[in-house]
């Protein structure tokens, strides 16, 4: 019954890799949309909105993602909202990622020279156009490297979705380890998969960082 580490284990770990990618995509897209709002709130002219966004960021950056997912998935039903695992993970990861991305993009927005939004104002552009046409495109470029850096963290972090039953990369390695008692091979393979996904992203991020270091 305990068996050798075979093709089946390899396949199930690769299968887990797809789930990891899907979870990361959900988290990144959800986090991106809400993160933009968080970043705008964090740089807004209203003090209370900035404070609110600041508290939101502090909370989600200050508690382990494990706890956040746990509280969303097992907590919502307690208050009468029964959600599917995908909905729960989408909510949990979106909240988590939006706090981090919001903070990263706030940095990007504030790194755009003040002269840019002044010049836009001087041309008569209003807030929406100023942000959409002038500030955000530059902010996104400036924060591209840290954004990708966070994406790498996020991909590794989705392993925590195992707690709500997702059989993703880490969990599939864990299962393979339990049925073969070869944890080093199982986790080693998982590590190789993570590395295969994350390394190119890290390189990309580093390249952009360098490009900006030389451009500015």
């Amino acid at each position: 019954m305990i068996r050798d580490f075979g093709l089946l284990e390899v396949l199930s770990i690769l299968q887990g890799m797809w789930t990891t990618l899907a979870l990361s995509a959900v988290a990144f897209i959800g986090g991106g949309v809400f993160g933009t709002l968080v970043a705008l709130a964090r740089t807004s002219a209203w003090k209370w909105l900035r404070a609110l966004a600041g508290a939101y960021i502090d909370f989600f950056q200050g508690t382990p993602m494990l706890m956040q997912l746990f509280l969303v998935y097992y907590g919502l039903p307690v208050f009468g909202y029964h959600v599917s695992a995908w909905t729960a993970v989408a909510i949990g990861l979106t909240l988590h990622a939006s706090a981090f991305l919001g903070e990263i993009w706030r940095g990007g927005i504030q790194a755009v020279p003040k002269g840019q939004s002044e010049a836009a104002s001087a041309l008569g552009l209003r807030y929406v156009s100023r942000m959409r046409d002038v500030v955000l495109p530059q902010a996104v470029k400036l924060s591209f490297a840290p954004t990708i850096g966070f994406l790498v963290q996020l991909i590794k972090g989705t392993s925590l979705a195992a707690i709500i039953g997702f059989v993703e990369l880490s969990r599939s390695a864990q299962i393979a380890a339990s049925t073969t008692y070869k944890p080093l091979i199982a986790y080693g393979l998982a590590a190789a998969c993570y590395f295969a996904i994350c390394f190119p992203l890290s390189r990309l991020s580093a390249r952009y960082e360098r490009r900006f270091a030389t451009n500015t």
Partner: protein
Amino acid sequence: MASAQIHAHVADTHKANEEPIITITGLQKYYGAFHALKNINLEVAKGGRIVICGPSGSGKSTMIRCVNRIEEFEAGSIVVDGISLGESLKNVNAVRAEVGMVFQQFNLFPHLTVLENCMLAPIRVRKVPRKDAEAIAMTYLERVRIPDQANKYPAQLSGGQQQRVAIARALCMTPKVMLFDEPTSALDPEMVKEVLDTMVSLAQEGMTMLCVTHEMGFARSVADQLIFMDGGEIIEKAPPEEFFSAPKSERTRNFLGQILNH
């Protein structure tokens, strides 16, 4: 000096209209506790060409930035072309659309091409169709003599070219007044002239201009009024001949001595 013969010509275009296009009354501005502008009063006639100089920190930038409300102010009023800069957001935008501004640091949008830089505001603010905006932009790029750079990005241009694009970009909104904040002081010496020439030709066409600059050659040949500011106040205001030959204030004299004497 090449601009000497221009002078007479510029002066001619001017005298015709005398109703003020900018009226600043009792303007007060604070940065926190720091009193940056102290009771500024100024009238600028249509077609007027004002050059403002003064030591660093004297409030020159602050004053012209108040004119199009990039800077808020605490007291006083500024009326531009009949529109008062009250609290209403609508008025602010109305004024900004009438007033062009050129910055020391160019402030071109680096992610847009030269052409797109010029088209952005007409499209977003004036709702001009894309095609027309492009035509307008090309007209003004020709006007500043760089139509061939239209599809480059700002980073690919020299400082002097960038500043001329910035001027063209402001002109695309067909402003009634142009504000310049030290437009040549971030430029390498050999590019100063091309930008000044562009400004001289704008003046020749009767554009109302408020210009912070220490280019005294330009001031002498183009300005109809020179203003010297210090400590947030207008210390001296006079036509160029008088300003240079017989400054009333001691501080003006010292300042002129410093910037002309090396």
